[in-house]
């Protein structure tokens, strides 16, 4: 199956769009349906599709397990960091409007919310990918 040119080509064509859609969902989390979790899962599904088409080793080569760990932690640090930044500027945890940016309070809120969504998206994407990689190694015995 891995040699199938149709699957490979279709995946090659689809993966960028899946990832773009994931980014769209993540960045619209603050103002409409969607958000970090949903977007992160969609982003991870791009990797999973890649594994199905090209095999686990190819993905391992492109995205090392340490990168997965680093990304999942980075996402959480972004989230907690912004929360604590708000505390440092004198508001409550995640009280976004306290952060002094040269834009209006509402815009600051929106911006910070998007950063938090990006953080959540990163963690969800990394964890989903790592769960899938762990399971697929045991099933396929490729490692």
């Amino acid at each position, binding site marked *: 199956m891995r040699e199938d040119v149709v699957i490979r080509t279709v995946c090659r064509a689809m993966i960028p769009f899946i990832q773009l859609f994931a980014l769209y969902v993540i960045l619209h989390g603050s103002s409409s349906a969607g958000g970090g979790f949903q977007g992160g899962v969609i982003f991870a599904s791009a990797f999973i599709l890649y594994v199905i088409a090209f095999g686990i080793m190819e993905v391992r080569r492109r995205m090392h397990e*340490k990168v997965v*760990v680093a990304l999942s*932690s980075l996402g959480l640090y972004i989230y907690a960091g912004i929360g604590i930044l708000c505390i440092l500027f004198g508001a*409550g*945890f995640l009280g976004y*409007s306290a952060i002094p940016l040269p834009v209006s309070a509402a815009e600051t809120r929106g911006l910070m919310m998007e950063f938090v969504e990006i953080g959540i998206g990163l963690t969800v994407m990394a964890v989903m990918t790592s769960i899938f990689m762990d399971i697929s190694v045991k099933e396929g015995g490729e490692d």
Partner: protein
Amino acid sequence: MMEHLPVLVVIIPLIGAYTSLVGGWVDRRYAFPIAFINILTQFTAALLLTVRVMQEGVVRYNLGDWLPPWGIEYVVDRLNIYVLLILLFLSLLCCAYSKRSIGMEIEERKHTGFYTIFLLLVAGVTGITVTGDIFNLYVFLEISSLAAYTLVSSGRGGKGLVAGFNYLVMGSVSACFILLGIGHLYMLTGTLNMADLARVLPPLYTSTTLHTAFVFFIVGLSIKTALFPLHLWLPDAYTHAPSTVSALLSTVVSKMGVYATIRILFSVFTVEFVVGYFPVMEFLSWLAAIAIIAGSLLAIAQRDLKRMLAYSSVGQMGYILLGVGMVNQLAMTGGILHMLNHAVMKGCLFMVAGAFIFRTGFRRIDDLKGMGKRMPWTSAALVIGALSMIGIPPTVGFMSKWYLALGAIEAGQWVFLAVILASSLLSAVYFWRLLEYVYFREGEGGVEGGTGDVPLPMLIPMLVLAAACLLFGIFVSIPLSLIDPVAESLLGGV
């Protein structure tokens, strides 16, 4: 920073979980110190929070500066802080204990993950105790439960996996029930804040939807606390989990279920509702009484030490719910005191069981002959824990049973009084058998596995808990000074 303590106690372990993951990737040895320092910091934060609660009564915190009925509110009163201190103290000791004990029980490449999940579990249980929002409570309940399923199955061998899977299925069913209950409440009132719910619910007390929601809550929480007929996931999970995890489950995870039950029964619904409109307390008390007797009887029938302790946990959960179910000041005090009591003594006993397994590999009670001489300190901790389980003064076990018995007399429930006395005798039966093997039977010579006690990182938490059994029994006025106002405020209207 002082005004941010309620949220910091939750955020600290969350950050720590991923920091220990990153640290563990750099070098596997870093994971433990990061986790330990993290819980220590969190415990310090909780102590500072205690000071504030003592001064102010109730500490409130609005997440994201959204005002309460709309945003998530963290509320810390005396009950929260009491439970929080117990949970963090036990988590700290379990974490210290885990350093050496997981060596043989968990594969080395999983150690980093172990501490990450450990801290996520701590974050979850902390969140449950500080939140004042019912949906937030559900989210944290899920975080800690998912972490618990993973920890149960983290050991070597397939039995832990099966036990973890059973726990996962039962726990998810229970989570569904709780979520349905929350959904019904939200549908009915449009609010998720506990204080707000307590305010808007009274006119709806006769509504069938509310009754349905309540039944969902009771069933869901009964599975989480392993109340007798719904306890089937518990023995396997406690028996086949690594020793540290058994101690953590029986102390921290089970307490959080009990705490959630008390919160929902008395702070979301009120005494007026659970006694007057939907008389569930009598039913719960009877179930708890059956749990006490059945748990003790099943414990007598076990030959495996950890399994025996697991069944005795089913009985001990019964004590707490019996105290809560009798709905009077004395019994409630006894029930809440028993939360501390059970955490301390069962934590101690599971650590002792883990120490025996660590040193000799023996799990069966019959194999523990002559341990009193081979591992004197561990066996001493076992004796104190066992005495506290039976309820012999001056241990803390005596005090909580004393209050439960007084509560039963005040409620005029002579059957429950008999149950409490009978179960003390039954626990004397199964602990005496254990002590007899440990102290009065000669061990066969030349047992492999070495002699002497376990390493200090395992021994100290055990001895601290054993000492706590005695200290809290003698100076019982210290926890009682926290519990009395709690029991009074929970029972508010009666």
